[in-house]
């Protein structure tokens, strides 16, 4: 069988027929998303649930969330290649793939999200140096390029491709220079993760998001970087675990998973310290200066439960589960901690995107609420399906997990 020749040596994969059925399921979701994409490109984003109050909605929440969750790529790369945490070699390939999916997926959503997709390049041609979004545009595209560069050697290591002498040497040379790209990636990713937070923190007309700052950066700049690196490694580890469940094979040893959990948990703890301080200062100083109270920031739909869920249930609890070795070494608790950690960062991105603009700032204005419609959901699931497709093909045909052979022998 032709398919078998492309599968990495010494590993087992499901039958080609089974794989085709799996791809068919992914394809069905992709087709649904493609239909919505065509409708949106043909008729404009009026077909979505967005409106003049909620110019930002599910798409931007999704973008911010996946970019945070994709931070496992740059942070694991930083720890592996710069700090030399050698154990991460067991999961670094997956981290790169997940990062690539998250970043390219976010960029695909953005092409849908802007009203004039054909003008997307204006961000480079007419950049506003004062806008945090300009920095995001530059860094996100540069970093996505870095991720492609990091992904290429893995593709070239495919059993068939690697037999070609030129590609074999090319892959080797890519590996030699990988610490350089890991460094560039860390720099770029740190800045755009920060700028995504800065984007909201500078909204001085929006009391829910506005934050004081250090030099030109509001606190949210640093909080977004911290929360991303506190959840990215956990997400990468969860993806590995999910793949193990789906494939029925051991892919990464528990020690590496626990290490990823420890990294995420430690950073989550540090993040929470600053986030709680930030929330306290915002509630007791920033808001009163704007003539507002903490209670006014919430209503029946966007209630305080979101804040407590973010900081408590999906903040302090996972931090404890991931930091304390006794808990971390119990698989169920490690996974629960990681899941809560990832949900927490999604809630954070959601409230900064939606609650920020749902809050009525003018005293005579009122709260509005936002519900995404089918077109937004379909395209969001389209990106998730795209991620599943890239991951499935990579797992089947590329040597993603260096421990797979040993763990399943």
């Amino acid at each position, binding site marked *: 069988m032709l398919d078998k020749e492309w599968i990495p040596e010494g590993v087992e994969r499901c039958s080609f027929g089974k794989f085709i059925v799996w791809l068919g399921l992914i394809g069905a979701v992709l087709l649904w998303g493609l239909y919505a994409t065509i409708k949106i490109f043909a*008729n*404009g*984003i*009026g077909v979505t649930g967005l*409106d*003049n*109050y*909620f*110019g*930002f909605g599910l798409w931007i929440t999704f973008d911010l969330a996946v970019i945070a969750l994709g931070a496992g790529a740059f942070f694991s790369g930083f720890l592996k290649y710069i700090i030399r945490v050698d154990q991460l070699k067991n999961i670094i390939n997956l981290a790169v793939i997940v990062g690539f999916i998250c970043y390219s997926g976010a960029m695909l959503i953005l092409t849908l*999200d*802007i*009203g*004039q997709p054909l*003008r*997307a390049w*204006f*961000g480079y*041609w*007419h*950049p*506003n140096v*004062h*806008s*945090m*979004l*300009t920095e995001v*545009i530059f860094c996100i595209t540069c970093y996505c390029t870095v991720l492609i560069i990091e992904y290429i050697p893995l593709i070239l290591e495919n059993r068939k491709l690697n037999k070609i002498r030129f590609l074999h040497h090319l892959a080797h040379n890519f590996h030699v220079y990988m610490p350089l790209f890991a460094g560039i990636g860390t720099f770029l990713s740190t800045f755009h993760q920060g700028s995504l937070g800065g*984007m909201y923190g*500078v*909204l*001085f*007309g*929006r009391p829910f998001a506005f934050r004081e700052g250090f030099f030109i950066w509001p606190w949210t700049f640093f909080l977004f970087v911290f929360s991303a690196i506190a959840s990215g490694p956990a997400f990468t580890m969860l993806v590995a675990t999910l793949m193990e469940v789906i494939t029925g094979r051991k892919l990464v040893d528990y020690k590496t998973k626990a290490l990823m959990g420890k990294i995420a948990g430690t950073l989550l703890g540090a993040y929470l310290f600053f986030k709680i301080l930030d929330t306290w200062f915002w509630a007791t100083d920033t808001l*009163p*200066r*704007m*003539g*507002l*109270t903490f209670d006014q920031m919430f209503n029946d739909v966007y209630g305080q439960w979101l804040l407590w869920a973010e900081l408590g249930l999906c903040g302090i609890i996972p931090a404890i589960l991931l930091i304390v070795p006794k808990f971390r070494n119990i698989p169920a608790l490690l996974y629960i901690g990681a899941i809560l950690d990832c949900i927490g960062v999604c809630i954070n991105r959601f409230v900064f995107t939606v609650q*920020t*603009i749902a809050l009525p*700032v*003018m*005293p*005579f*204005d009122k709260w*509005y609420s936002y519900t995404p419609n089918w077109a937004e959901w379909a395209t969001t699931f389209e990106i998730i399906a795209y991620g599943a497709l890239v991951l499935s093909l990579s797992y089947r045909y590329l040597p993603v997990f260096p421990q797979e052979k040993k763990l399943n022998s």
Partner: protein
Amino acid sequence: MQVKEFKVKWGMVVDLDKCTGCGACMVACQAENNIAPVTEGSNKLRTLTWMLVYELSNGKDFPEHDIAYLPRPCMQCGKPSCSTVCPVVATTKDEEGGIVSQIYPRCIGCRYCMAACPYHARYFNWFDPVWPEGMDKTLNISTSVRPRGVVEKCTFCHHRFAAAKEKARMEGRDPMHLEEEDYIPACVEVCPTGAIVFGDLNNPEHKVAKLAKSRYAFRLLERLGTDPQVYYMSKREWVRRQGDNYLENEKTKGE
């Protein structure tokens, strides 16, 4: 970011005690600026209304019940929350009169400016503009028609400003020193009660400059620091109180 100050600062003073909420300013703005009627007009969150009249209430029952109407154009902020966030410099604080401009062919439709503006003064073109048959003949030739996917907003009828400067040049007058009646936005011209006054806030000869200094004058959300060029005035304390988010123990301006 510092507040941007220019030699000429066009501004508006709206007397809320005179405004009857008739909506003439909204209609005039719509016609003057070629604002396309939307197909589904019942969705107020998708309509385009550069000038929007809000209804304010004192929240009391009859006979103490009282209402006021507040027309809200773009505030043309001295420190605009919108222009600093725009990634492509599609919007910026204009040196000529301090009007916040909007360059439609430059806008990429990211809507970050809408997220930044606390006044909801910016509107997105959700669909291609379609005018009912024959109505396209009434379009104003001085104003561009915006395509789908860009953000638009009130420009204080900037085309009228351009025309007034042109006229002044033709007559050998200084275009940077216009008289009050040389340049008047459509909403001001049409207001039946004379509630809206327009002029150069920096020119002491203009009526707005005096009215803006009234003890009853206030600006929306002043403490946010956007420094709007639109002033409101009312002798009613509860109306002034709704201009900004006053805490319970705080005194209102004008008291």
